[in-house]
């Protein structure tokens, strides 16, 4: 019974990683950059929802809608101001460092505006938990919602990429940016769209993260961001189903590590497993093996 209970906890944790990883993997696959600030956009989204509900007195739906809009705009602005000027820079470390700068900027702005106190998050999604096996196995309502959201987003994104014009443009840019440009694809607009979608998803991720773990500080997004990044790589960066599978598996690994080995070194175990996977299959579970051409 504990095994199943741990499995359930792992899926619960993993679903959060999966949602965050989806945003990471999209941006990496198409813009070919690691958006270190993604975790912090999530934090911003969560703060907006919280402020709208508690200070603005708005309904949860409206608050979430506003948050999605603001995050989307934020994502596009960040891309235009900080990342796109560096796209053709001589080293791709430049854009990574700038992303780190943006991350610090967001964290410190949040610190100034909202303060460092941990705030409890209001319960927005009130789905009752499912109780199985006579109360021995309790699946939280929020977990079910998160997994459903994950699946919906995954399917939605996949369809978007395959069936719509902008989606196919994203695929083209992801495979060969220069060729896509030559074929008439507006690369700038496509990348902006990618960031827009990724950041909008971040707002949703922020909501679900703070429903599962209802505490919010300016640093709440940082660690989940890194772990979700690990999850995205685990699943194969650039692969949308990979992000979901990677996220869930990572969550399960982390919980099992805590349960059966030690709760102190669970993080180390997670990272260690990642290293093993990368050494055995570097492109991750679903990634494509692209041979470098001379």
């Amino acid at each position, binding site marked *: 019974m504990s095994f199943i209970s741990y499995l359930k906890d792992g899926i619960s944790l993993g679903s959060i990683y999966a949602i965050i990883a989806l945003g990471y993997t999209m941006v990496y696959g198409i813009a070919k950059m690691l958006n270190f600030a993604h975790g912090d956009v999530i934090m911003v989204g969560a703060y907006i929802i919280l402020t709208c509900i508690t200070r603005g007195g708005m309904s949860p739906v409206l608050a979430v809608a506003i948050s999605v809009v603001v995050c989307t705009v934020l994502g596009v602005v960040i891309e235009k101001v900080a990342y796109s*000027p560096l796209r053709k820079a001589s080293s791709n470390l430049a854009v990574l*460092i700038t992303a780190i700068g943006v991350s610090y900027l967001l964290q410190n702005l949040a610190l100034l505006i909202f303060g460092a106190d941990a705030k409890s998050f209001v319960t927005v999604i009130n789905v009752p938990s499912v109780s199985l096996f006579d109360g021995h196995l309790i699946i939280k309502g929020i977990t079910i919602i998160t997994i459903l959201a994950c699946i919906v987003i995954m399917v939605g994104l996949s369809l978007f990429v395959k069936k719509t014009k902008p989606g196919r443009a994203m695929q083209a840019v992801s495979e060969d940016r220069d060729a896509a440009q030559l074929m008439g694809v507006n690369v700038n607009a496509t990348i902006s769209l990618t960031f827009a979608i990724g950041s909008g998803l971040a707002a949703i991720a922020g909501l679900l993260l703070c429903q599962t773990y209802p505490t919010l500080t300016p640093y709440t997004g940082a660690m989940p961001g890194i772990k979700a*990044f*690990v999850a995205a790589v685990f699943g194969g960066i650039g692969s949308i189903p990979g992000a979901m599978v990677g996220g869930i598996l990572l969550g399960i690994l982390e919980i099992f590590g805590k349960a059966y080995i030690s709760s102190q070194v669970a*993080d180390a175990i997670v990272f260690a497993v990642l290293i093993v996977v990368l050494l055995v299959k570097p492109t991750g579970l679903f990634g494509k093996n692209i041979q470098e051409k001379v």
Partner: protein
Amino acid sequence: MKKITNKTTRNNMINYGIVIVLFVIVQALSSTGNLSRLLMGLLVPLCVYTIAAVSLNLVVGFSGELSLGHAGFMCVGAFSSALFSQVTADSIPSVPRFILALLVGAAVAAVFGVIIGIPVLRLRGDYLAIVTLAFGEIIKNLINVLYVGYDDRGLHVATSAAGLNLDTGGKQILKGALGISGTGALYKDIKNWFFLIGILLLLLTLFIVQNLVNSRSGRAITATRDNRIAAESVGINITKYKLLAFTVSAAMAGVAGVLYSHNLSLLKVSVFDYNMSILILVYVVLGGIGNIRGSIIATIILYALPELLRGFANYRMLIYAIVLIAMMLFNWAPAARNWRARMMEKIRGGKTKKEAA
């Protein structure tokens, strides 16, 4: 060929020169009582971070690999040397003990460099970055659960305070999350020399790095950075040279760690997290990837700046983040570079016009 060698040697000598001149200026100011306590306190940490930045530049700049786990090497160097110092506190006098501690720290860090380097260097680009990040976190995690004690029977290692089973008269040195305290106090008599030692270590680091870069191995390393496939086809053993750079870099980071742990009276693992790795990376990138002199100058400015901005308390980190982004854009964005080039042209063009007139 001779011309190039002279130019490189001149460049290298300038780097030594800058360090020595700064040292002399600082000494002059401090002996005339003109150095504020704040800046005096910053001197040794500045050496620590500069050594860390120069050693990271070896991997990032010359080997072309993004390493996000540099703090992990500093961490193992710091802890191994602090343990060594505390355990041999009574048996070896302070000066030779410190030299040995430096060697211990460098050696342990180098060993970790090899252990981590062998699997890691087979990966590429962003994957390599994450794995180095992962290793940094693993090291941090593992040391945090360690308890080390020392009594007449010898050294004890355990994962909890109770598990140490020390005899009476035994001392707990590493207490898990509480870290190691009191290492600085062991060296009270030579504390005033720490800055000089730091400068000497920095000069040593410069020496090692610059000579490595300009040697045959160094050229092989830069070849692999510039065009991996071409280098491979010419017969250069990529893994061996990358590993060499990585290990040397790790050893120097270990030395920086030793200096850190002996300057502060409390050593905790939690400071050696990915934030510190990223901080050092920022110093390297802003100074110019592959530019040793830039690393030195950037570290000095970027480390001292937040401290000098103390008056702005709440806005300190915010200003830092903005300056960081602005400098990145200014230095690296092709659009900005073009603008600068045109500006330079205008200034120069203006001059020649004046001359002609």
